[in-house]
C-alpha cells in the first residue's frame, strides 16, 4: 500500500506548489462609494440643479464614475400619462474621469446635473457607478422623486 501514499503526496505537492506560485495578487477589490447627496427618498427640484456629493476610495487607484438617472414610473413600463402636456421623462447619463482618475481617495461635489423644466414628475432611480483603474466596479442606487414642489436643498458649506 505504498503507492496510494505516494500518489497523495504527489497530489499535495502539486497543489502546494501552485498555491505558492500564486501569491502575487491582481487587484479584484472594488472601489467604495459613499454617496452623501442625494439621499434615499430625496425630492429633486424640477428646473433646478442637483446637489451631488460623495466620497470615493479605492485600495489602488480610482478610474472614473458615472451617474445615471432614469424614471421608474409604472415599474418601467413606458406608458405616458396623457393629460400632462409636453413633459418628457428625465434621463441622464454622464461620466466623469479627470476628477478622480488615479487617486486613492476623492471627494466629489458639484451641481452639474441639471433637471430641465419640462421633466416629468415622478419616481426616479439615481445610480452611481464607479470603477477603479483595474476595472473593478461598484454601484449604488437611490430612489428619488422629481417634483416642482421640491425644495432647493440647503447647502451645508
Amino acid at each position, binding site marked *: 500500500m505504498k503507492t496510494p501514499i505516494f500518489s497523495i503526496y504527489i497530489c499535495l505537492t502539486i497543489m502546494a506548489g501552485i498555491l505558492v506560485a*500564486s501569491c502575487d495578487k491582481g487587484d479584484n477589490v472594488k472601489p467604495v462609494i459613499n454617496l452623501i447627496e442625494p439621499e434615499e427618498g430625496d425630492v429633486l427640484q424640477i428646473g433646478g440643479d442637483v446637489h451631488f456629493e460623495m466620497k470615493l476610495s479605492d485600495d489602488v487607484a480610482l478610474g472614473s464614475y458615472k451617474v445615471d438617472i432614469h424614471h421608474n414610473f409604472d415599474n418601467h413600463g413606458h406608458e405616458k400619462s396623457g393629460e400632462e402636456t409636453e413633459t418628457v421623462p428625465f434621463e441622464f447619463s454622464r461620466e466623469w474621469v479627470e476628477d478622480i482618475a488615479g487617486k486613492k481617495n476623492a471627494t466629489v461635489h458639484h451641481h452639474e446635473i441639471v433637471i430641465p423644466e419640462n421633466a416629468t414628475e415622478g419616481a426616479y432611480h439615481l445610480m452611481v457607478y464607479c470603477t477603479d483603474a483595474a*476595472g473593478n*466596479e461598484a454601484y449604488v442606487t437611490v430612489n428619488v422623486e422629481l417634483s416642482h414642489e421640491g425644495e432647493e436643498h440647503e447647502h451645508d458649506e
Partner: protein
Amino acid sequence: MRIGHIAVVFCLFCLLRVNAQETDSIRTFHLNGVDISESYGQFVRRRSALEVNVAGHDFLREHFTGNLVQTLEHIPGVHSMDIGSGFSKPVIRGMGFNRISVTENGIKQEGQQWGADHGLETDVFDVECVVVRKGPASLLYGSDAMGGAIEIMRLPPPSENQIFGEALLSGRSVNGAIAESLMLGFKKDAWHVKARYSGQDFGDYRIPADTVVYLTQLLPIYGRRLKNTAGFERDASLYAGYRKGAYRSHYAVSNVYQKSGFFAGAHGIPDASRLQDDGNPRNAELPFSTVNHLKASVQQQYTAGNLSVRLDAGYQNNHREEWSLFHTHYGTQPAPEHDPDKELVFRLQTYSLSARAQWTPSPVWAHTVGWDVQHQRNRIAGYSFLLPEYRRFSAGLLWLSEWHPSGNLSVSGGIRYDEGRMNIAAYADAYLATYLAERGYSDETATAYRWRSYPVRRRFGNLSGSLGVVWNPAGEHRLKANIGRSFRLPGANELASNGVHHGTFRHEQGDPSLPSERGWQLDVSYACEQDGLSVFVSPFVSWFGNYIYLKPSGKWSVLPHAGQVYRYTGAKALFAGGEIAAGVDFLRCFSYNVTAEYVYTRNLDERVALSFSPPASMRHVAGWKGKHAQVEAEWQAIAAQRRTAKNEDPTAGANLFHLRTTVRILPEKINAEVTLSLHNLLNKKYYNHLSFYRKVEIPEPGRNFQILLKIPFKQNIK
C-alpha cells in the same frame, strides 16, 4: 461488485451484460472475454484513460432531485449551476457553459449553453444511465468538450420478449413540485420500443431569508418564497431499437418544453412593488422564459468480422423565448404589434452527422476512424437584442488507436483535426442611433453604436489529441495517466454579442477577432480497492493559452442602465485541483465514504481567479444497507470561496446535512420502491457560488423533503 470510491453509489451500477453494450456498441465484439459479472461502470472506468464516473439507475434514483445536473453533483468534480430550483447546467472541474459537452443517444445536445440563465433541456425521468468524463474530451466530441463530457445513455433491452413499463411519482416540499412520468414499452424479437411522458409543475421556491439585496437595495421576500420562480415542464419521447445479427439501429424522438418565471427582483431595476405577494405561488407571470427542445436521432450500425461501422444522424430545434413587459430606453421604439412583451427569441437548429469505423486486427490492437459534421443556424426575434443571427459549420476527422499488450495494461491515443466556420449576420439598431443622437452624442458615435453586431466571417482550424495509459498492476490497484489537448470554437456571443444581457445586467461585447480557445490538460489518477476498503486520488492540471473570459474594460457603456462594457477577451489561464475519495465497508451492511474536491483557477493575465470557480467541498456519507431498505446520512461541508474574478463577490461556506432512504415495498410482487430524502435538514441559509441568483444575494432553497415512488411492471410475452 463494490467500487466504493464515491459514496455507496458506485457499487450499485447497472449490471449490464457485456453483449448488450448499447452505448459504445461499436467495440462490443472484442469484449467477449470479459467476465460477465463486471459492471458497466467498472468496465468503462478500467478502459478509459480519462477519469470516468458512471451514474447507473440506482444512483440516479437515490439522488433524484427532479433535475439531472443536481443529481450528478454527487459525483466529485461535478457541480450544478442553478437557475432557481428547477433548472441547472453542469460544471465539471470549474468549467461550464460551452466548455462541457452533453450528449444524448449519441447526439450532442445543442441549446443556448452560453447563457447564464439557460438550463439543460432534458427529461430527467428519461435518463437511464449517465457517463461523466472529466478532463479534455475534444478528441471524442470535438469543440466544447474541453472540461469534460456528460453522456446520457440507454440501458440495453431486456433479454426476453416482454411488455414493460413504469410509473413514477415525485413531490418536493421546497417548491411544491409535483412530477410524474409514465413509460410503456415492449421487447419483441429484434424490436425494443419505449414511449415516455413526463410532467413537472412547481411553485415559487422557499428560501430561508426575509430579504435579498439587489443593486444595493434591500428587497423584501414575502412569505419566504421567491416570487415568480414557478414553472412547469412537459416532455415526451419515443425510442425504438432494432437488433438482428450483425445489424443494429435505433431511432429516437424527444421533445422537452419548459417554462419558468424569473424572480422579478432580479430582472431589470429593483422595485419592491413588484415583489408583493400576488397570492398565487404557482404562477409564472412576466418576466419568464420558455424553451422547447425537439430532438430526433437515428443510429445505424453494422459489424462484419473485425470491422464495425456506425452512423449517427441527428436534428435538433431549440426554441427559446424570453418575455418581459415591453420596455425600451429609446423613445422612438414602438412596442411591436404582435406579442409586444416578447423580449428575446433564439431559434437554434442543428443538424449533425457522425460516422465511426472500427477495425480490430488482433486482440491487442483496435483502431477507429471517425468523421463528424455539424451545421447550425440561429435565428432571432424580439424587441430587444443580445445575440445576432448566425450559421456555424464544423467538421472533424479523428483517428484513435488502442493497444492492449496484456490484460493489465492499455495505451490509447488519438489525433483529431476540426475545421469550423462561423458566419454572423450584421444587426443595426436605428432606435439606438436616434437615442444617441438625441442625447448629444456625435454622429460618428451614433453611427458606430448603431451596429449592434458587425458581419463576421471566420474560419478556424484546430488540432486536438490525447494520449493515455491505464495500468492495473494487480487486481486491486489501478493507475491512469492522460495528457490531452482540447479546443473550443468561440461562440457567437463571444464573437459578436453586443448589448445588456438581462441575465447578467452587464453590457457584454464580443470580439470578432478572437481565436479558438485551446488548452492542455494532464490527469493522473490512482484507485485501490481491497477488503472493503477503497482509496481514490485524481489530481489534474490544465493550462490554456487562450481562455476566453469577460474582461471589464473600464469604459462606460453608452447604453442606458449599463455600467462598464465587458469585452470577451482571451487570457492565459491555469486550472488545477483534483478529487480524493476513501470508503470502508464494515459489519456487512454498514459503510462510510468521504470525498473531497478542490479546483484552483487563475487568470494569469489579470492575476486573479476565474469567475465561477467552485469552492472546495467535502462530503461524508454514512450508510446502512439491508435487504429491502437502505439509509444514508450525509454531511456536506462547503468551503468559502474567496478567490474570485473581478466584480464577482466572494461566497461564504456552509455545513449541510442530508438524509436519504430507499425502501422496497412488496419486493416479491410488484417491486415498487419509495425513496425519501431530506435535503438541508437544518434549513441552513447558504449561497451557491455558481448559482444564477447568487449575485442578487438570494440564498439557496431551504429544507426540502422529497418523495419518489417508482412502480415498475413487466409481463413476458411470446
